[in-house]
């Protein structure tokens, strides 16, 4: 069974703090993704990575950065958290073979509240 784990289920941070969200997958997948989920907006892609040390901006990268130093781990960084970054964050991974043919496997999510 593919397993994608996220470091925290719930996180409360103050405005201006630096926030790290960690994601680990155990299926040797090449592709990893970070999404944020907001009511009425669905899932929006923040960043993705197609290989170690490789990263690409998604649809809403502003205010975020990422790091992929090892194949199994993909970190999302909020350099200076703001209240409009309060959201559910979902990590996913996917086999890199055959492009979009394969499904994405999701972690349980981290609900981040910025006060």
């Amino acid at each position, binding site marked *: 069974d593919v397993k994608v784990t996220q470091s925290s289920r719930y996180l409360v941070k103050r405005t201006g703090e630096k926030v790290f969200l960690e994601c680990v997958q155990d299926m040797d997948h090449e592709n990893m993704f970070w999404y944020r989920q907001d009511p*009425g907006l*669905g899932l*929006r892609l923040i960043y993705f990575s197609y290989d170690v040390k490789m990263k690409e901006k998604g649809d809403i990268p502003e205010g975020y950065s990422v790091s992929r130093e090892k194949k199994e781990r993909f970190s999302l960084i909020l350099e200076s958290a703001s209240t409009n970054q309060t959201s559910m964050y*979902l990590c*996913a991974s996917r086999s890199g073979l055959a*492009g979009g*043919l394969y*499904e994405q496997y*999701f972690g*349980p999510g981290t609900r981040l509240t910025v006060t």
Partner: protein
Amino acid sequence: AQSVTQLDSQVPVFEEAPVELRCNYSSSVSVYLFWYVQYPNQGLQLLLKYLSGSTLVKGINGFEAEFNKSQTSFHLRKPSVHISDTAEYFCAVTHMNTGFQKLVFGTGTRLLVSP
């Protein structure tokens, strides 16, 4: 622009009744189509997917979906729902263009099954 539309944000239904959740997409290239389900406090998991071949696709938990190319739709159906089907359902599309193939999600439909 390539997009996915889920017109119904919420669908209330009684237990054992049939249900259809609607999904329409727009694309200038061929697509792969997916339905994901998110149970309360969990990440997303794949219900079913259409890649090619038969337009009627069967998934887990008794769900099925039909790909209609002329109407650019991929509606999800279940003939008899259970209380446990209460969840949020996301339609998603991957466009078979060149380059990295990403999932584009709809805004989701919340299915509320009551006794």
